[in-house]
């Protein structure tokens, strides 16, 4: 008896580019996951709050504004502080490789760049959340 995988798709900060977030949200939904989309302009606090309240397995953060080095670490820190360190943090957007590596070292589980097929994201989530 296993429930559906629950994912929070989140758009932090002032960045309004939501095409990718919505496409990924729709693809995860069609792959049978329970998807909650935060809408735009969320603070890290709001995102973490929503993730805990919705009891999600994973947060997928979409960010194209260049603020990733500020936003991701804050979300990771807030999750730890609220005792929700078990929630997996991933994401994607316009993030240079070098920054991706830094963020993955900080505890972001995986970041996806432009051109990633949604099927790859679906597979990865299914595998990662199962473990």
């Amino acid at each position, binding site marked *: 008896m296993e429930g559906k995988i629950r994912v929070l798709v989140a758009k932090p900060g002032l960045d309004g580019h939501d095409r990718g977030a919505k496409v990924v949200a*729709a693809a995860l939904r069609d792959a049978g996951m329970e998807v909650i989309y935060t809408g735009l302009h969320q603070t890290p606090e709001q995102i973490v709050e929503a993730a805990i309240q919705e009891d999600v397995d994973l947060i997928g953060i979409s960010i194209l504004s260049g603020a990733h080095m*500020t936003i991701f670490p804050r979300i990771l820190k807030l999750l730890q502080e609220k005792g929700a360190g078990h929630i997996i943090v991933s994401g994607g957007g*316009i993030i240079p490789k070098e920054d991706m590596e830094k963020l993955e070292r900080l505890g972001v589980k995986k970041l996806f760049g432009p051109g990633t097929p949604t099927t790859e994201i679906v597979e990865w989530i299914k595998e990662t959340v199962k473990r």
Partner: protein
Amino acid sequence: MSEIKKARDDWNREVNNFKERSYRFETVSGEPVDILYTPEEIKHLDYLRDLGFPGKYPFTRGVYVNMYRGKLWTMRQFSGFGTPEDTNRRYKYLLEHGQTGLSVAFDFPTLYGRDSDDPFSAGEVGRCGVAVDTLRDMEIIFDGIPLESISTSMTINPPAAMLLAMYIAVGEKQGVPSERLTGTIQNDMLKEYQAQKTWIYPPEPSMRIITDILSYCSERVPKWNTISISGYHIREAGATAVQELAFTLANGFTYVDYGIKAGIPVDKFAPRLSFFFNSHLDFFEEIAKYRAARRIWAREMRNRYGAKDPRSWLMRFHTQTAGCTLTAQQPENNIVRVAFQALAAVLGGTQSLHTNSMDETYALPTEKAVKIALRTQQLLAHETGVANTIDPLGGSYYVEALTNRLEEQAYKYFERIDSLGGVIPAIETGFFQREIAESAYRYQRDVEKRQKIVVGVNDFIEEEEPKIELLKIRPEVERHQIERLNEVRKERNNQKVKESLRELRRAAHNGANLMPRILDAVRAYATLGEMCGVLKEEFGEYEEPIIF
């Protein structure tokens, strides 16, 4: 014609014996494409009614009489990053290399009318554009750049009035009266709610600010393009060519409706409306889109709105190549994509053009990447010969048939939007947002099923990682910007700022034109956050319906 028809039937029978490769023959937007176009497909085309002559109604072939023979399109690269000093240096670099107009990219806090020290701005200052908090920053950005002789486009929407006021104030300091300033503010809020998602206030107060700008500029800044009605972002968010065309024009008509409702005679503001389109991958579809757009706008402005001044009928537009088509994989290929897209824009008769840089899926472009993008335009202008004759694809059976088809499809959307009560009610119920999200998802699925091939992404893949140099934003930008903001706050006459903000609030309340009050506040070095804050308190904030 009957002879052609007979020959065509014969040919059809013959061609049916040939096997086609397995491929869905349609435009990138999903419009069906026939194997061949002949005079039959455009037999109802009436040359004078449907095409006419360049610079003449209905402007299908171009908005100016001699088009690029008189003046090439303006090569205008959108740029801005880091501190005002960084951006000033980049502008001087671009001007030295032959760029002919400026186009300012602001950072997110500026786009949302927030100061650099606002908690929401953390991590965003100077990241994807230049930070502007007060007039001081604009003075630095345009230091040593004569506003008298350069035209400047500013991509700014909710705080458009404030940035325009700052530009006017910089002009004053350079001794250039506002009557002589040339340029554009985007100031297109409708597409923000639909696609780009940069908003502050709800739609109705936003429309009031816009009509205040229309009215003020028609008197005081008569050479300024007051709204750049933008399909670009609609397309980038995932729309098809038809959706881009239809939604953009529907937005344009809505601005005209509101301008007229605000009591401004249509011929007083319509000539200063300009447009901004995307140039996407499907070469002929894009050219047809520009041609259809000009014809629809001219017809509706003349017939529906009764505009008498031909300048109100003609659709001038800027084009930018499609950022969403650039790939992170094999980034040098993007140079070629951009060249094809730029060629479509030129064959479509654009008035100005931005060519994207190959590295934009990673970061803001480096100087080298921007230079190649600019050189691409110069190659088109000076080497290919495409600017020698006007609308060279006019009369092409395919391009004319496609122009007609896009036009018909656009009118179907106009009817649907009307049936929903117009553009603003359709925004509030999420109609556009849903249409766009569905198109984006359909496209993505086509790519993943390899019904659409993206070179380097789902075919012709290379495993090796691309190695290209990337632009880095110095991390100290945010701190520098906040320090300067604090200095300005200390040095300015705070009493004067307070008074000007009080006047702004009063105007917001009593319906007086906001522009003169904003200009006073700007001159007193009020911050963007202070001015937008006052209006936010008066007008409220927008919340969007969440759809995916």
